[in-house]
């Protein structure tokens, strides 16, 4: 393992100034970054552990809002009665993170900003996996688990378990950096890189994710993940939905796919189809169809288009209180 220095700040300000130095990287739960370093897929000059930083963990679920500190562990969030009462779909999303060890060590911020699982990236060919001739190894190779909504050269999928749900809820992320604090929609944390070496998130140098907040009052939400194995497996496709409106009426709907694109895939048009009336099976079917429309699958992942439709339909059904 290549050498690196290790810093353990105790305040956000210290963490920010440490992260401003090039080659510094946040260490949160450490469940994945250390493996990437051991495998020499990523290199760092300095790890900045956030474990000892005050004010980065904790959950507040009062006043119709949910606030989750970035260093909150997934298990602590899972066990927080106020949070899971306000957003029951959190349970589904977190229980999908296997194993218990990962839930105990992994953090909310780490889940949101974790690196992709693309098997070309993980074997050292880079996030975009462009071959020597500049062609896409992913497009020419085995892409069964890759994006059906690729964006230019970005063909990996965003692996976060919480991001689709938080984006569906319209959650905001609080980011601290050298220039102070900014608040952005969670979806604005993500981007599809177009050059090797670019990251898949929008945090600038010295910036760190502090917390996420969401208005959760009167919102019905659900997550449905298609997983091949019951034990220890990534979803093949995930869908998160949130619905607002009185009674059976849906005024607004947000539908987000996970494991479908390099970013959490906000299917705006599908949400529009689902909103504006009662959520009938026919309307659900139409929204599910819309969520998968425009997909551009590659040689080996056409089946994921069907999974996107199914996951959307079932998530909408769950949120509307119907049989999945």
């Amino acid at each position, binding site marked *: *393992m*290549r050498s690196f220095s290790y810093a353990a700040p105790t305040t956000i300000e210290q963490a920010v100034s440490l992260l401003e130095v090039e080659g510094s990287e946040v260490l949160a739960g450490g469940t994945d970054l250390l493996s990437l370093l*051991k495998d*020499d897929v990523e290199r760092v000059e300095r790890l900045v552990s956030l474990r000892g930083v005050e004010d980065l963990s904790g959950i507040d679920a009062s006043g119709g809002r949910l606030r989750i500190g970035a260093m909150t562990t997934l298990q602590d969030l899972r066990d927080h009665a106020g949070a899971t009462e306000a957003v029951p779909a959190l349970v589904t999303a977190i229980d999908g993170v296997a194993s218990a060890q990962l839930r105990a060590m992994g953090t909310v911020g780490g889940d949101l900003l974790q690196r992709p*699982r693309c*098997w*070309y990236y*993980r*074997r050292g*060919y880079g996030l975009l996996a462009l*071959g020597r001739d500049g062609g896409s*190894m992913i497009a*020419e*190779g*085995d892409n*069964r*688990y890759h994006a059906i909504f690729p964006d230019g050269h970005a063909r990996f999928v965003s692996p976060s378990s919480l991001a689709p749900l938080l984006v569906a809820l319209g959650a905001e992320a609080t980011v601290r950096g050298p220039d102070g604090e900014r608040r952005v929609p969670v979806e604005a944390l993500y981007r599809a890189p177009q050059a090797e070496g670019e990251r898949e998130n929008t945090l600038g140098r010295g910036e760190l994710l502090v917390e996420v907040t969401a208005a959760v009052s009167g919102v019905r939400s659900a997550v449905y993940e*298609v*997983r*091949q*194995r*019951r*034990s*220890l*497996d*990534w979803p*093949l496709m995930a869908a998160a939905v949130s619905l607002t409106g009185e009674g059976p009426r849906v005024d607004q709907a947000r539908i987000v796919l996970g494991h479908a694109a390099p970013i959490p895939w906000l299917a705006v048009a599908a949400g529009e189809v689902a909103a504006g009336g009662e959520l009938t099976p026919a309307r659900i079917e139409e929204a599910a169809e819309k969520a998968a429309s425009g997909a551009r699958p590659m040689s*080996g*992942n*056409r*089946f994921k288009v*069907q*999974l996107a*439709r*199914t996951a959307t*339909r079932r998530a909408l059904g769950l949120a509307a209180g119907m049989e999945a």
Partner: protein
Amino acid sequence: MADYSWPEADRRGQIGRRPARLDGPVKSTGFARYPSDQNPPGLLAAKILTCPHAHARILGMETSAAEAMPGVRVVHVIQGEGSEIQWAGDEVVAVAAETEDIARDAVRAIQVEYEVLPHFVTEEHRDRAPAAQPGSERTDGDPDAAFASAHRVVEQTLGMPQMAHMCLEPHGQVAAWDGDELEVHASTQAVSTLGGQFASELGIPATQVRIRTEYMGGGFGSKFSPDRWGIVGAELARKAGAPVKLFLDRDQEVSVAGSRPSAFARIRVAADEQGKLVAWDSDSWGSGGLPGTGQTPLPYVFSRLPNRRLRHTSVPTNLAGSRAWRAPNHPQACFLTMASLDDLADELDLDPIDFLDRNLDLTGRADVYREELGIAAEMAGWEERWQPRKRSRDSALQRGLGVSIHTWGGRGHSSNCDVTVHPDGAVEVRIGSQDIGTGTRTVVAQVLAETFGLELHQVRVSLGDNRFPQSGPSGGSSTVGGVSASTRRAAQDALGEVLARVAPRLEAEPEQLKAAGGRVFVEGEPSRGMSWPEAAAQIGGAPVSARGRNPGPGRLISSGVGGVQIAEVEVDMDTGVVRVERMVAVQDCGLIINRRLAESQVYGGLIMGVGYALFEEWIPDPVTGRLLNADMEFYKLAGLMDVGSLEVHMMTGPAYDERGVIGLGEPPVISPGAAISNAVANAIGVRVPYLPLTPDRVLDALAADGGVA
């Protein structure tokens, strides 16, 4: 000469009982020291630099940076300049260093220049293979005429990919020299033969190699030789003058340390109006890496099927060569055959069990299969639960049942052992065998205890050392027959010597004496006897010892078994996800020594079977030729939540017991792929032609049938 035999049912003390495995507590508490747990003083760690290309020539190499790193003790070039590499993951340079981290860093500091050459890794596309080797055609009877006059014919292409052994303890060893004597703690299935192989590679006499394997963490057919990393590990230790631990990293374990050949086939099979099989035509191909692979035994089980034509093409790929995988060739042949027959039964509008039953005279064991099919059907509730294949898609979740039958030999291998009775009554067997996790240690102890009329804790089994009498490698379900027979013979002989000394004291003939319940006594007069320690004391100051052998006199073992399995699955028609809800297994294996361990073998076979039916496959990258899933993240093993309810029935009773002991490791892993595939076809109304039954393959099959996706 003694009459070597197993006791009758009413006279058995140990045999047929269900004792827990003797090493269960040390294994489950972590006290068992596996070869990879050995840490002798001064131990060095070794790592291997492997080639990232599937086909390449080494143009040059620079190792000086690695050699100069503090803590690096030896840099050993395995394949130097000019070498042609034929698969990704092949070993190039090894490093021994003071810590594993240093060894890893040193490996990373080695620069190798490659000329990358063309590769081929996707043998399902036989037409694209650069070096396919078609074999000659074999014809029996008149298949063309039989097909022409047949009542029903089905024809399709089926297949299953190459997959890994995935031993949880990777391949490797700890090698230590004392002068020119080598001791190796090896994770091996072949304690008695490994030393000679090390010796000849290292150029030392076989007498100077000691092999130790007290426990080992899985082999499944992939751990019979020292392998290149074994010899390299010993060389590193010799050069460094210190013990060296070299176990493969997980990506190497998956990529190069064991795989099962793929099998694909275009198959035509036909039946007459009575539902009798009348013709078979298969054009098969497959790959076991660079060496290609041979013909699987088709048609499987129904080996007397008339009018056959078989062709086979061996397809070399730029992948590491395959190794024996639990029941070599049988799971492939079973899937290809039983899936074809299942589709033919559907074409004939016959219940598949009825169809198999009508053709059992084409097998070698009709009576056993018939009895087992009846029991399995009863256990699975076949009569109430089985329905003809559904063509409707009325709901998202569809259930189905499938059946398969299989066979295996399982004759005991060559085995020697020494049984010693000490004057204090202590009894020990020394046997150069190994317990690869199947329970060999426990079964041997039961045979000893049975023979001497003692309890398990009163006997000692010493194995896993090549200084003990040579006993065969553990492969092909041959161990239990070999070690139980040699142990029984030695134990009967040793006991005979004790009885000969005791007889005068009891004023009886030795033949009248019996050892049971911790005593030796005149049969029929329990009071005319003495305790076992008193009896043993009669032998005087020196222990009594006897050598047992297999093969040998007396009918202790046999071979040839049949088994039936039924799978029940649930398929999500909208996602293609398959859940195994239930597996029923009915199996014979002659005389069962330990019921619990026998059932465990079947449970293990079913779990492994669910794995290769639903999840496991090598995924070689068409672009680079490397495996994309040489890890435990995307090389998916079945977890406990994936295997469903497993129900096992062992065939026992006089007709089975009288055959003697037969091996059981392989048979239960043969049928799951076929039974589960047949259950999925039954559930969704269409054959998914390839294993594993992943969602994409299931949805593809449904789409091809004009359905949803």
